């Protein structure tokens, strides 16, 4: 396997972007990343695009061909592949692009992720998102997506003593970070009281424990390390790219206070990169719900099992803490266009590793980790990146 690097990235603004179509978003993110990398269309060997459910959100499938068309690359007839793993579609698209370059099949690939979620009403969007769970044996009986994470939250609270206030602190921290991200959907601070007083969605999760419904896209350019130097002085090396799966049904998991797929992907990633959790300087984790970030920092080995709540309360994961988590604002504040999320996390890692994160730049940013989850934990994709 060859060494693989990232040489450019771009994101659109995240939010309710009524004036922009799915195609507009894909084109904007893709072209921004291509310009950032300094490559030309003829340098691109293949395209990968992550998207969860454009078929149901906007009635559009066949995203590979769509991406080639809007990027002005149709005449080159390059391979263009759509990748789907619910909310981990973006991360998995990057894993696919990584494998293609590492194998030697391609030298330069563009990997994007996009979702246009606000063309349907909120209840319909919620129903579409429920297709990431088991339709016949979970959603059929009235389980919602927040409901599945609420079941894990209640279990975590019962087993480890995690509190609603600790969950709320995840949202407070991420909103605080989001105020420094001009691309974020919500750029305002909230308080623990705001979270605890917000509408209950699925007990114990309040509205402000949940990530929003968002339009957005992101893209990165992947190249072999030897090719990367032709285009940029600031390549970022992919130290690890790991993908793990688990049952789609929550009821078939081996435990409910962790995501075993994330634990497995993390183990793979640390081994591949040759690093320990303590070597990670900062991370972007999949905080689709506040409990998800608590479990993520435990699954990644940043803290012991059950210590995610207290550690968050103590500021371990704050921007000035020992391991800053979700400096972008995370899914909670930056927004969660499901197919784009995994790539938007990589964009944040690249900004930090290249010292381009502006006001939210963390002091030590040599090694960063991204943690992207599909469904209630049926897929996990973890990347570890370093500045070279």
């Amino acid at each position, binding site marked *: 396997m060859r060494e693989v690097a990232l040489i450019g990235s771009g994101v659109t603004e995240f939010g309710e972007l009524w004036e922009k179509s799915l195609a507009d978003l894909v084109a904007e993110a893709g072209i921004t990343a291509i310009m950032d990398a300094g490559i030309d269309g003829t340098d691109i060997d293949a395209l990968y695009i992550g998207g969860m459910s454009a078929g149901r959100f906007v009635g559009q499938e066949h995203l590979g061909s769509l991406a080639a068309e809007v990027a002005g690359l149709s005449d080159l007839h390059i391979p263009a592949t759509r990748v789907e793993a619910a909310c981990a579609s973006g991360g998995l698209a990057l894993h696919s692009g990584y494998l293609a370059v590492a194998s030697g099949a391609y030298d330069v690939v563009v990997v994007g992720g996009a979702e246009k979620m606000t063309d349907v009403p909120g209840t319909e969007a919620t129903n579409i998102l429920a297709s990431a769970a088991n339709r016949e044996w979970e959603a059929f*009986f009235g389980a919602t997506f927040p409901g599945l994470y609420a079941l894990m939250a209640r*279990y975590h609270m*019962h087993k480890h003593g995690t509190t609603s206030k600790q969950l709320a602190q995840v949202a407070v921290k991420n909103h605080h970070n989001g105020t420094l991200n001009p691309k974020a959907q919500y750029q305002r601070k909230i308080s623990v009281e705001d979270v605890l007083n917000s509408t*209950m969605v699925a007990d114990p999760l309040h509205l402000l424990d949940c990530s929003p419904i968002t339009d957005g896209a992101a893209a990165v350019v992947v190249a072999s390390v030897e090719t990367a130097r032709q285009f940029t002085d600031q390549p970022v090396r992919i130290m690890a790219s790991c993908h793990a799966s688990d049952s789609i049904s929550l009821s078939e998991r081996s435990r409910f206070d962790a995501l075993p797929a994330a634990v497995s992907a993390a183990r793979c990633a640390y081994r591949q990169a040759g690093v320990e959790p303590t070597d990670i300087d900062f991370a972007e984790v999949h905080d689709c719900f506040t409990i998800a970030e608590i479990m993520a920092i435990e699954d990644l080995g940043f803290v012991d099992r059950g210590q995610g709540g207290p550690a968050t309360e103590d500021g371990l994961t704050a921007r000035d803490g020992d391991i800053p988590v979700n400096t972008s604002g995370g899914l909670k504040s930056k927004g969660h266009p499901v197919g784009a999320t995994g790539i938007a996390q990589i964009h944040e890692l690249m900004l930090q590793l290249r010292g381009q994160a502006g006001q939210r730049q963390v002091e030590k940013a040599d090694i960063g980790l991204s943690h992207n989850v599909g469904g209630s934990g049926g897929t996990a994709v973890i990347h570890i990146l370093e500045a070279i």
Partner: protein
Amino acid sequence: MAVPRYWREIPQRYNLVGTKCGSCGKIYFPPKVVCPTCRRKSLGHMEDCALAGRGTVESYTIIYAPPPHFEGEEPYTMALIKMDEGCYLMGQVVDLEPQEIHIGLRVEACFRRIYEDGTRGAIQYGYKFKKMEEAETP
């Protein structure tokens, strides 16, 4: 939703028919064609097996923001239930006040309406859970 999609799940949803692995004896619900423990050895040895319907609440949530078919029913309680046979099921817990639900509560399955496909569509039935009525002898 097309009726056959739910019609074919009737044995499981009405009578809790799962699968027992003839090789290791483990019981699964919903039914499986292969045992994840025995894998190849289990092929051809997976047998239908109805659950007794009794279990214990392992975790729960109260849904306040329901999906389309369940609008107007909120708040309702959903639980992850460990069945006495060892497998876990997801289902609503009914006939109790929301504050009565707790981890460790003993429940039993009951046959209920799940939702209606509009005013003219099929009515979907299946299992929900309620508090166990009779005291159990340990």
